[in-house]
């Protein structure tokens, strides 16, 4: 998969959940480009072009990050915190997609600046509907933040400190 085709970063430790999510997203005949990572550390490595992703171009950020909360190594809230704290990625929409409906999780996520919080419906039909709806909304209906490469060409964002040094925040 080429970087510039990648539209969604799915952070999901459970391969079955990941498979079902992918299945739901791709059911709409929209061939979304989806990158799946299995834990919080891998997600951060991908976004900040570190570790196994050090060769990745920092210019292409996903249009949407789907983030589970309960993740190995670095948990979802920690990932969210780092994303929203980094100048490079803070504009990337992040949607929490989790089983937890705990109020403290919801509240903490919004405090950290999450763009949407979705509880995975238990019922598979509702689950499929929810995933489809959110894919359509964030990739088709929603207007994403301007692409960094275009922004660089226009030079409008050049003054933002740390801009263009993705991977070394």
């Amino acid at each position, binding site marked *: 998969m080429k970087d510039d085709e990648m539209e969604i970063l799915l952070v999901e430790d*459970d391969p*079955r959940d990941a498979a079902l999510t992918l299945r739901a997203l791709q059911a709409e005949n929209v061939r979304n480009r989806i990158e799946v990572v299995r834990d919080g550390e891998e997600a951060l490595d991908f976004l900040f072009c570190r570790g196994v992703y050090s060769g990745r171009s920092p210019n292409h950020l996903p249009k949407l990050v789907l983030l589970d909360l309960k993740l190995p190594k670095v948990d979802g809230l920690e990932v969210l915190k780092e994303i929203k704290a980094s100048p490079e990625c803070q504009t990337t929409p992040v949607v929490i997609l989790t*089983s937890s*409906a705990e109020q403290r999780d919801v509240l903490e996520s919004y405090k950290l600046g999450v763009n949407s919080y979705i509880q*995975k419906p*238990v019922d*598979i039909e509702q*689950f499929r509907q929810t995933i489809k709806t959110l894919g359509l909304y964030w990739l088709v209906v929603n207007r994403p933040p301007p692409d960094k490469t275009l922004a660089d060409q226009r030079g409008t964002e050049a003054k933002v400190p740390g801009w263009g040094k993705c991977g070394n925040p």
Partner: protein
Amino acid sequence: MLVSGTALLLACVAFAVYDLTTFRATMARSLSIQAQIVGANSVSALLFNDPESAQKTVSGLKAAPNILSAGIYTPAGQPLATYWRDRAGRVLPLPAVSAGQAETYWLTNKEIALVRSIVFQGKQIGAVYIRSDLNEMNGRLTRLAGLVFVVLSISLAAAFVISSVFQRVATRPILQLAEIARIVSREKTYSVRAPATGNRDEIAFLIQAFNEMLSHIEERDAALQSAQQGLEQRVVQRTAELEATNNELEAFTYSVAHDLRAPLRHIQGFSVALTEDCGSQLDATAQGHLQQIVDSTQYMGRLISDLLSLAHVGRQELHLQVTGLGSLVQEVLQDLKHETDGRNIHWRVGDLPFADCDPGLMKQVFYNLLSNAAKYTGPRNPAIIDVGYGSVEGQQVIFVRDNGVGFNMKYANKLFGVFQRLHRKEDFEGTGVGLATVQRIIHKHGGRIWAEAEIDKGATFSFTLETVQKDGLQELPVLVLEGTQ
């Protein structure tokens, strides 16, 4: 001191009065004797009308210094001879004396006077009139008063001395004892002790007994305090244990929420995927089995949700606010519209009161009760469901009554238990958690819930709420028709 003084004074006065009375009688007698002597000596003078002789007789009274005056009178009341101690020559008229009385005397402030008839051979031949001053009696009175004063003074002084001695011996220790008792009762300090007197009398015994009593109380108090401290420690310990258990329970609930739901979704998801991707390769039997899997997972999903909601109700703190129960019922009816679509249900909602309750939880109560009523009236056309407020056996209850399938009262005690169901799943679906949740909410509000039913006649669920506001019903239309066929 006052009492003994008064008693003594009264005794003295009584004695003085007695003495004076006696003395007065004595004086009167002595005056009478003098009058008799004078009378006897003046018989001849009277008979022979000899004033000189009479004068001599009367003047003999000079010997008695207390005689103020005396006179010998003829029967006609004319003075024959008179004697005056101080004012010689004055004539004193004979006072009138009632006839037939040989002698009479009277007393004034200053004197005692006596008139006595002089009788010779049974015939009254004259009268003697003698007045005596009361100097002697007054002197005696003064002396008596002096005596009383002296006696009183000495007695009181003696009483004072005796009482102060007594006070040192008895009163002071008792007062000290009383003061200590006051301190003990006021400050609740049981460590004080009454000082011993050193004597071996009743008061010493009293003090000893009092001190022993204090010792016992002190011991009890200490024991009580240590028991209380132990109790407090245990409460703290138990609370900590309880909190730990509660936290574990919360963690468990969270884990149920997160971990148990995911595999369930996977089973469902892949069952659907199987149908979609390989449906053409599956025969009817395989498809039927697959459907069973899907149905079971759906039911398990509902079970988990209901259980979580029950656990949530248990953990949640009540946020009380005055709420119109009628409005809650209307909201629930709106929510139920979807479920009861296509059914003929007559909802008859009466006036419901306001109550200080948690609106969210109370709405859940009505939701569970009304959806239950709708569910178990499934075979009825029309279904009639009453929601009302009224007095049942002296208490105000809110009730939900339906004309549904009812249940056997034999199993009424199982109704509110978790996972307890009185109907077969294929007849009426449900998890058996709804009424347990309802009961838990009602109990949290300090109320009570019960049900009465008869098979095929319907069921009535009634509950009390302690916080129902007695006056002011929320007025709502009595009859609400919902749903049409």
